Every structure is written in structure tokens, then in C-alpha cells.
């Protein structure tokens, strides 16, 4: 009886101690040098996980990154509960204002692929922006629709219903995809618009890349959008997309690279980095659904030196880890823009 009471008390004390201890460790440790915490987008997470041990080796900076999603990353850096945030969508002007002195720096570059499930199709599916947007608007509902057949001469398109699949969670891939649909279809832009999550007029939603991939794998006639690295890793068939030059391209490294050729010689503002649906001048290889993903850092930070080192390393040496994961290394002009932005991160103490 006494023993069990003592045990109970001990357990209670232990619980209290644990709660207090975790509470203490969860608070951001500000004074300690050599540690950086970040949170945000899941899209660049594979790349960031490669960077973390390398930066640890190079500069002895201990980085922890929580892939909580772009929105949570923006919220966390705005509240300064992390040292840096990451987002697939550039900050809107109101978000930038709320963040009170934040810089938004592009640090990785990738593309969105359009996987589909059409068993027995002879060859690869071809799509263009207007057709894709009409599928997601619910205007084209069958695979043997005239408008799809026109793009795919000689293909045996079945009389199957099209099931468009979308991400039900907020996602940078959704941002990239809807940004593309908005730029190729005015109706889409007016009716739906673009964001990390939008109100899709039709189709079925699933959670995460794994979720949408699961639905497409099991539903003949389904199509969706996931980042190209995920598509390749899971050996999906994905569509070749028609660009402004009228050519069908794949989201390979060359396709991504070509879509960058229209960037200005000197990048001065973030809005110049909007690279979906590149113009005809980008050339025949340009893949149209390409996006930058960004790191958000405060201009005043107690860890400014470490932050500068880390982000500088990421946009320079870190880029060589990209191609294996289908992240195209940043072009020189964007790197130059990044350097100028990194310099704005100043020590607050």
C-alpha cells in the first residue's frame, strides 16, 4: 500500500519533471552558437536533409529542420520561433510586411510532373496547358475527348472517365501547378486562382504526395501532379507537356534548365523569378511547370553569421546535391540575387 503510493508519487514527480524538462528544451535556445532551427516546406526537404550533415561538417553548425509545410514555415519565421523558414510560394506583400524585416531567398529549383494511370496506352500521353486546365475544371471528362485525341494522334485513348486527383493538404506543388494553370487559362485564373491550396472544382483529394500517388496507382483513368523526383522514384508514367514553342517536353534537368533561359541578366526582385509557362523564346526544350523554392530569413538575427554561412553554402556548394534528387542547380543570375539578399541578414546584437 505504502509502496504503491510511493511509486505513484514517484511517477507523478517523474511526469512533472519530464513536462518541465521538455518545456525547457522546447524553448528556442538563443544564446547557443552553432545551432540553427528551421521549419517549412516539405518539397525541398530531401535536399535539405542532404545539406544538414554537410553544413555540420563544413562549419560545425548544427541544423534541425522540421518539414511542417510552407504555411507553418511562414508563420514560424514571422513569430521568430525558428531561425529560418522555408516556403514553396514566395511571400505575398502582406505576408512580407507581417514578417517585419524578412528576406526571401531562392535556394532550390524543381519541376512538377503530371503522372497518369492509363493501362495499355501505346506510348506516352501528351498534354498542353489549356487541356490540362480544362480537365481540372471538369470541362473535359473522358480520355477519348476530341481535345485530348487531337494532341495524341495514333494513341489508343480509352473511353474512361478522367479522375483528376489533387492534394487536399496545403502544398508547394499545388502552388506551382495552379500557378501554371492560371497562366494558361483565364477561366481558371478567375474561378480558382493559385495558392498552396485552392478550391478545386472537381476531382478527388488526397493527403501528401504519397496519398495522391496511391489514388492514381489504383484508379485507371486518374491523373495528378507531384514533384518530378517523386514521380521518378516511384516509376510513374508522366505526361510530356507542350510548351509555348509548341514542343512536347519532359521535366528533366535539361527541360528545367531551358525554362530558365528567359530570366533577366540581373535579377533584382522576386517577381522576376516566376518561371511557369515560359515564353516561346525560352526554346523548344523548356518544361512549363517549374518553380523555385525559398528560404525566409530575418534581416535581424542573433545568429546572423551562422545563417549567412548556411544559406550561402546552400545556394553555392549545396546545389551539387540537387541533380541526384532532380533539383536543378540554381543559375548564376539567381545565385547573384541570393548573395545580395544574404548580405541583408545582419546581427541584431
Amino acid at each position: 500500500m505504502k509502496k504503491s503510493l510511493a511509486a505513484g508519487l514517484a511517477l507523478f514527480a517523474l511526469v512533472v519533471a519530464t513536462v518541465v524538462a521538455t518545456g525547457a528544451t522546447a524553448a528556442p535556445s538563443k544564446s547557443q552558437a552553432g545551432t540553427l532551427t528551421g521549419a517549412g516546406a516539405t518539397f525541398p526537404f530531401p535536399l535539405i536533409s542532404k545539406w544538414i550533415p554537410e553544413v555540420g561538417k563544413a562549419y560545425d553548425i548544427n541544423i534541425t529542420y522540421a518539414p511542417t509545410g510552407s504555411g507553418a514555415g511562414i508563420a514560424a519565421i514571422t513569430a521568430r520561433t525558428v531561425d529560418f523558414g522555408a516556403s514553396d510560394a514566395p511571400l505575398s506583400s502582406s505576408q512580407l510586411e507581417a514578417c517585419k524585416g524578412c528576406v526571401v531567398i531562392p535556394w532550390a529549383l524543381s519541376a512538377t510532373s503530371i503522372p497518369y494511370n492509363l493501362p495499355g496506352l501505346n506510348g506516352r500521353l501528351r498534354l498542353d496547358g489549356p487541356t490540362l486546365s480544362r480537365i481540372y475544371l471538369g470541362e473535359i471528362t473522358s480520355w477519348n475527348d476530341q481535345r485530348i485525341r487531337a494532341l495524341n494522334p495514333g494513341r489508343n485513348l480509352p473511353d474512361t472517365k478522367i479522375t483528376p486527383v489533387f492534394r487536399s493538404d496545403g502544398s508547394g506543388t499545388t502552388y506551382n501547378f495552379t500557378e501554371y494553370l492560371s497562366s494558361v487559362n483565364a477561366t481558371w485564373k478567375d474561378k480558382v486562382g493559385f495558392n498552396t491550396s485552392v478550391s478545386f472544382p472537381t476531382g478527388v483529394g488526397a493527403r501528401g504526395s504519397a496519398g495522391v500517388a496511391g489514388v492514381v496507382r489504383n484508379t485507371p483513368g486518374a491523373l495528378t501532379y507531384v514533384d518530378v523526383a517523386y514521380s521518378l522514384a516511384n516509376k510513374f508514367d508522366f505526361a510530356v507537356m507542350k510548351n509555348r514553342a509548341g514542343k512536347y517536353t519532359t521535366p528533366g534537368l535539361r527541360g528545367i534548365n531551358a525554362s530558365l533561359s528567359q530570366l533577366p541578366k540581373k535579377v533584382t526582385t522576386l517577381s522576376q523569378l516566376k518561371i511557369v509557362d515560359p515564353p516561346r523564346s525560352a526554346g523548344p526544350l523548356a518544361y512549363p511547370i517549374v518553380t523555385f523554392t525559398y528560404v525566409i530569413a530575418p534581416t535581424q538575427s542573433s545568429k546572423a553569421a551562422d545563417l549567412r554561412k548556411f544559406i550561402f553554402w546552400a545556394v553555392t556548394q549545396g546545389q551539387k546535391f540537387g541533380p541526384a534528387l532532380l533539383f536543378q542547380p540554381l543559375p548564376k543570375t539567381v545565385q547573384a540575387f541570393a548573395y545580395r539578399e544574404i548580405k541583408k541578414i545582419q546581427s541584431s546584437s
Partner: protein
Amino acid sequence: MTTVTQDPAAPEPSLESRGIRLGDVAFRGVAIAAAAGVTFLLALIAYKVIEQAWPAIEHFGLSFVWTEAWNPVQDEYGALTFIYGTVVTSVIALLLATPISIAIALFLTEIAPRRIAAPIATLVELLAAIPSVVLGLWGILVFGPWVAENLEPWLEKWLGFIPLFEGTFYQAGMLPAALVLTIMIVPITSAICRELFSRTPRDLTDGALALGSTRWEAIRGVMFAYAAPGIAAAVLLGLGRAFGEAIAVAQVIGGSDHINVSLFAPADTLGARIASQYQGATTPLQQGSLLYLGAILMVISLVTNVCAQLIVRRFEKQRRAV
């Protein structure tokens, strides 16, 4: 305890009895602290949820509850789609899970030989130990396609005249979500029902059997009457589970922003919407609206719980009156 010492013949209070008193004080303290702590925590959570939902409450007012909208681009939100989805999935799950749970419990207590009953009971309870995210993955990869290819065509064939059971077949939608919820609440309700049935006094059922009633009559007349309030409580506990489940539902429900009449079509629930969009919420209003959904969920759960207690109390009264 102090009254004992009034006897002059009694010895001085021993160290041991003082020890017990210390134990009592400590026990009281711990118990009060635990109860107060939980109450305080709940109040704090409710406060925080409402505080964070405030931008949305201020902006949309109460009409949020009956507005069907979810548009992060236009920053327009409403809860109706999700309230509808929550109620419909949970009610279907409950309608299916209750008879199944009672049947399992009766089988385990009345029909199955002890040697079989014990392992089966463990297996059913193991079902509750499957993490909901795993159940959701199974739902989307295995169960959902099966529902879309077999169950939904079959339902449409026989019940297609009801609008609920017609339309396109989807592997992610209201029906798969309701069925996954059923699987999740059966272990809870059946475990409680089994406990209730096994506690029915043997002499009552034996008496009924001795008076010539059949086994079913004894179960219906004696066991059910005895266990009714408990069963009601068990069912409502299951309902609470169904209301609150987020991840598994988010994976299989198809995340639609609109209300669809067909049970085959994608829908969404309060919990699932919070789980899938909170991390990606980009505007303060979207975040506030998601927490507003959370507040609505809390109110619905509270109302259900109060109803549960009222029902249990009414059953108790009836039983005493008999």
C-alpha cells in the same frame, strides 16, 4: 481516524497510523491536482482555440457555420461542408458499428467457448492498436479501391434509386471514410459491451432461462435491459471517436470543398480538414477558420457528451422504476 484516540485505553497513535494519514493527505493532494490539472488544461485549450479562431469568428460571425465555402485564394471560408461530412460519416459508422459490436460481445460472452473467446477478444482489441495513419494508408491503397470496384457498384445496383447510392464510384469518398471509421470504433464499443454483458448477474439470465425463455429472449429481455445505459454510453464513446478522428479520414475521404449528395463522392470532415490544411494555411484568416472548425468540433463533442449523460441517466431511472 481521530475518533479512535478518544478511547483512553487505546495506545498513542503509532508512527504507522500517522504515516497513513500522511499518505491520505498526499493521495488527496495528488488526486485533486490531477483533476484540477485536467480541467485547467481543457479550459486552456478551449481558450487558445477560440483565441486563435478569433480572426475568423470576427470576420465571418456565426454564419460561418451554415456557409458552404472553402476558398483559400479568395479567403472565403465556411463550415457547412465539413459539419455535414462529420455528421454523415459518424452516423453511418455508428449504425454499422453498433450491431457488429453487440454481436461480437454476445458471441464472446454467450456463444464462444472460453478457449476461443479469449484470443478473439484480444484480436478485436488489437484492431484498436493499429495506428490510424496506417489504417488510412490501408484505406487508400487496398480498401478504397475495393469499395470503388465492388461495394459501390453493388450498392448502386440494389439501392441506386436512393440518391445517396448513385453516381460515379470513387476510391476516396464519404463511404470508404465511414467504413474506416466503423473499423476504428468497433474495438472500443465491443470491448465495453463485452464487459457489460459479462457483468450481467448470472442468476438473472438463469432465471429467465428457467422460466422457459429461449436464449435470445433471455439476452434481449435481461441482458439488454441490464446493459442498456452502458451500451448507450459505449455507442456515444464510439461516436466521440468517430467525430474526432482526423488522419485516417483525411487519407480516405477525398477532401472535397463541396457537399455531394452521393455517398460515393469525395467529402470532408472537420477533423480531416484541420489535419490536412493547418500546416499549409497561408493567411491568418485561413488559420483562424481552421481553428473555428476546431471550436465547432469541440461544441459538437460537448453536446454529444451531454446527450450521452442524459440518456444514461434516463435509462438508470427506468431501470430503478422497474
